[in-house]
Every structure is written in structure tokens, then in C-alpha cells.
């Protein structure tokens, strides 16, 4: 689907817990295909401090209802204002933006590793991989059990593993402490990851060691979201690339990360 700016109608605002919400936004037009990894850039109205749009992964798409959903973790003014969106109101949304995850062409065994709000970019990926009959494992790391939300959703598409820093659920520690990454990584043909940079770096390092295909979805501070401001660069072997158009998904082989 080509990029558009639309006033999408808020048809649901699901509060998962204190700081996690899911907004379901409906388009008046027929949605064309949106790919796993793509994102939307939401305008925050009614805030005296937020000026720029705020980027969010497209958490899921319902082509029958013409809705996209957005998973919001509250971290500042913009996410707070959006989390208060009233059902029936409209959100000015620019979407779909960015490139997409590369899906395997044959059936493969794949691992998805998510942390924090990074899990948001992995759900539609898990779904696509599952629908194409890949064998999907999903490892989700969080600070504490209360931050582990939507696990049921993910378990529809594969086996879900969890870690928590405080040990309140799953394996205690970071995702990199989980056996699936620690011991079984070589059984996977692909790894996809999205989450805090230290986490992605650790995942990338392990994948690189084992020469496993690995794509990451990067976050970045964005002014435009569609490739014109050149503010959202990441350094690659081919020079600076825009995370909003040439990403957010990058193969670890082209990133110039010290890992």
C-alpha cells in the first residue's frame, strides 16, 4: 500500500495494564497490503508539549474491518496522550511506512526475540511466518511479569518463551540468558529481533557468531518518517541509511555495530 495520511477512527482502546494500551484504528478506505515490520506515524493533538508525530509499529492489521492496531507503551507525553484516545475520536495517522522483514521463501525454523515495546513489531511477523508454515519460536524478555502482555496472542503463532529480570516469570535474567538463545540457537535458520539496543546487540552478536540470518528492527528519533528530513540515520557499511525508509528493518550484516 502506498503511504497515506488518514484520519483513522479509534474503535477500541484496550488497556492492558497501567502503561500498555492497544488502539484499534479504522480506515474509511479499503486497506491494501501492509507488511510485517512497517510502522505508522501518529499525530498527537491536544498536547501542549508534543510537536512531532510519534512512530509505532503496526501491531496487527484486519483487512476485513480495515483496521490497524497499535501497541503503545507509555514512556512520555506523546504516548501518554495517545493512550487516552477516546473511542469515536480520530487520530491523524501516516502509514504504512518503512521497509519490511524478509520472510523465508521455504519453510524454516525461526526465532523472534522481543523486548519492551519492541514486541509490537513482531506480532504480525509471527503471524505471517506461521501462516506460511514456518516453525516459529518467540522469546520475549521483560523487566517483570507485569510487563509481559499479549503472550496469548503470540502463542497462537508459535512457542513462546519468556525471561524476566526479576524472575517473576519465565527464566530469570535477560533474553540472552534463556537456553533457546544460549544453547539452541544453531537449530534456527533465522532470527528476528526488536527491542532495546543492548538486547538487539546481544542477539546480533550471537547470530553473527553462528552465521545465522538475522534482521533487526531499529528505533530512532524521527522528525518526518518518510525519508525527507534525514534525521533518523544509522551507520551501515554503505554509509548513513534512513531508518524510516531504508529501515526500520536491517540485516545485521550491513549494520556497523560494534558487537
Amino acid at each position: 500500500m502506498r503511504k497515506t495520511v488518514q484520519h483513522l477512527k479509534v474503535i477500541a482502546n484496550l488497556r492492558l495494564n497501567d502503561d500498555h494500551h492497544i488502539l484499534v484504528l479504522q480506515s474509511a478506505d479499503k486497506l491494501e497490503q501492509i507488511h510485517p515490520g512497517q510502522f505508522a506515524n501518529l499525530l498527537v493533538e491536544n498536547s501542549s508539549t508534543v510537536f512531532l508525530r510519534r512512530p509505532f509499529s503496526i501491531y496487527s492489521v484486519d483487512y476485513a474491518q480495515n483496521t490497524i492496531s497499535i501497541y503503545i507503551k507509555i514512556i512520555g507525553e506523546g504516548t501518554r496522550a495517545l493512550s487516552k484516545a477516546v473511542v469515536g475520536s480520530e487520530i491523524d495517522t501516516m502509514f504504512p511506512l518503512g521497509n519490511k522483514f524478509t520472510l523465508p521463501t521455504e519453510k524454516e525454523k525461526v526465532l523472534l526475540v522481543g523486548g519492551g515495546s519492541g514486541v509490537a513489531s513482531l506480532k504480525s511477523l509471527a503471524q505471517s511466518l506461521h501462516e506460511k508454515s514456518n516453525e516459529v519460536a518467540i522469546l520475549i524478555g521483560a523487566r517483570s511479569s507485569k510487563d509481559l502482555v499479549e503472550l496469548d496472542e503470540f502463542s497462537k503463532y508459535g512457542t513462546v518463551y519468556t525471561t524476566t529480570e526479576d524472575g517473576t516469570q519465565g527464566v530469570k535474567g535477560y533474553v540472552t540468558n534463556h537456553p533457546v538463545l544460549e544453547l539452541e540457537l544453531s537449530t534456527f535458520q533465522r532470527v528476528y529481533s526488536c527491542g532495546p539496543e543492548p538486547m538487539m546487540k546481544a542477539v546480533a552478536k550471537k547470530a553473527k557468531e553462528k552465521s545465522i540470518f538475522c534482521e533487526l528492527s531499529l528505533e530512532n528519533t524521527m522528525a518526518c518518517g518518510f525519508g525527507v528530513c534525514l534525521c533518523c540515520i544509522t551507520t551501515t557499511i554503505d554509509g548513513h541509511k534512513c531508518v524510516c525508509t531504508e529501515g526500520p528493518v536491517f540485516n545485521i550484516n550491513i549494520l556497523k555495530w560494534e558487537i
Partner: protein
Amino acid sequence: MGDLTVSIHNLKLKNPVLTASGTFGYGLEYDDFMDVSLLGGIVVKGTTIHPRQGNDYPRMAETASGMLNSVGLQNKGAKYFATDIYPNLLKYDTNILVNVSGSTIEEYIACAEIINELDHIPGIELNISCPNVKEGGMAFGTSCASIEAVVSAVRKVYHKTMVVKLSPNVTDIGELARSAEASGADSLSLINTLMAMAIDAERRKPILSTITGGLSGPAVKPIALRQVWEVAKSVKVPIIGMGGIMNATDAIEFFLAGASAIQVGTANYLDPMITLKIIDGIDDYLNRHKFSSINDIIGGLQV
């Protein structure tokens, strides 16, 4: 429908709304959203003779009603522009200006010479006001002597419409505007971004990799309006005003202050179709106030 056409030296614009350099890419990025040919003109990204990687990440900070950037003129160089980008722009039926920058006068000249050869580029905007590059850039724009040096040097090699883009980071913009005019500028554009800074108090670090950067957006509009007003009183060449224009009312304010055309910058990020809405809004204003032409309000402030 009022008459929206304006002239900037030899350029005939179908309407007075252009896009600001660095905020509209090469226009192509907007094809999904709008018909770029409806614009009065577009000013493409800052271009230099040599390719530039620009500054390190982070390059952006949000501020109250504005943003800082320190992109630092990332571009693939004038030759790449001429061979790889320019051909894609021929489809547009609008005035395409190239924003020309350099670290030395020789670089400005070399870049302008290449652009001078491109038939469908009717003008350049000489950027002597970029706060985000170490050498050259803004330094050229802050003294009469250096303005004279760079503007008259480029004038010798560039034979179409030459707009000179002024820096707002100066004590007396009227005086510098007169220097640029006297050195051969056909038009002046302003303002470029204001030198500014953002700090992350929690990490005790500057937010931008370059420490300081350029402020744009509605926060700067009052300063931009004042400088356009001062420059309009100081020179005879037409002025292209910009700085924080978010809607048609803002644009009208710049015309009243003395701008013959305006550029829209940061607002394009928030709403990629904003320029078309601004054109419609200007037309509305003329109708509502019974002006037959945009030229009736240029410099029309009643003081």
C-alpha cells in the same frame, strides 16, 4: 480564484508557495501524498560539490513548538544530483531550485557551475547560513565581507536566478541583506535555522551529536517575521520568507511583512499535504478580503 502568480526575478511562480530545502527531499518522496507540480516551486536538499555523509546520529531533538536538526548537509554531491536525480525531476511542472552549499568559495563556485548546466533548474538558492557544518556554512552569512566574497564569486559563474539564503544568527540582518543584494543576489530568502541547543538532563549530555544545531518550526516564526520585515525595508529585490509557517494565516503574515513568496519547512513533516492546504487558504483569504491578486498584500502591513 484570485491571482496567485508572483515573480521572483526571472522566475514566474504559479503561486507563492515553495518548499524549504532539507524538508522536502527532492520532491519525489512526496509523490505518494500529493501532486508536486501544484506548487509554486520546490527547493531541493542542500547540495555540495563533494558528497557528504553529514553528521553523526543523533541529529534531531524536539523542542517546544519546534525542533533542532544537525543533519549537516548529507548529500551525494552535485554530480550525482545532475546524473541520477535531476532526470527524475523533469516530470514536475514547477520551479525546481537547488540549494547550493560549500566549505570554501571554490566549492560554492564548482557546485553552482554544475547546476548552471541543468536546463530545467531555473535557479539556485545559495545557502550561506547552514549552522550545521564545521567550515563555511553559516560563517559565510554572518559578515558583509564574506557575503560579498561568496555571492559575487558565484554570481560570476551562475547566470540564472540566484536567491541568497540569509542567516538569522546575526546582529543586523538588514545590513547583511544589503551586502547580498549589492553583490548580485536576485532575491533573498530567510530565515535559515537559529543556532540552538538541547540537553538531556538525565544523561547530562547534549542531545545532538554536534552539541548545537538549528532550530525551526513555529517557535521561530516571530523572529522570522521580524527579520523579513527588516530585510524588506532594506532591499529592493524580492524576498522569500520562511520560518515556522504552519498554515495559510502564517503565510499571509509573511506576505504582509514583505515576502513575495514563502517556503514551508518543518510543517511538511507533520502534514505532507500542508503546502496544498496553504495555497487554498491563501486563495480563500484573498477572496474573503476581496483582493484580486496576491501582489496586493505583499508588503501590505499597515503601520
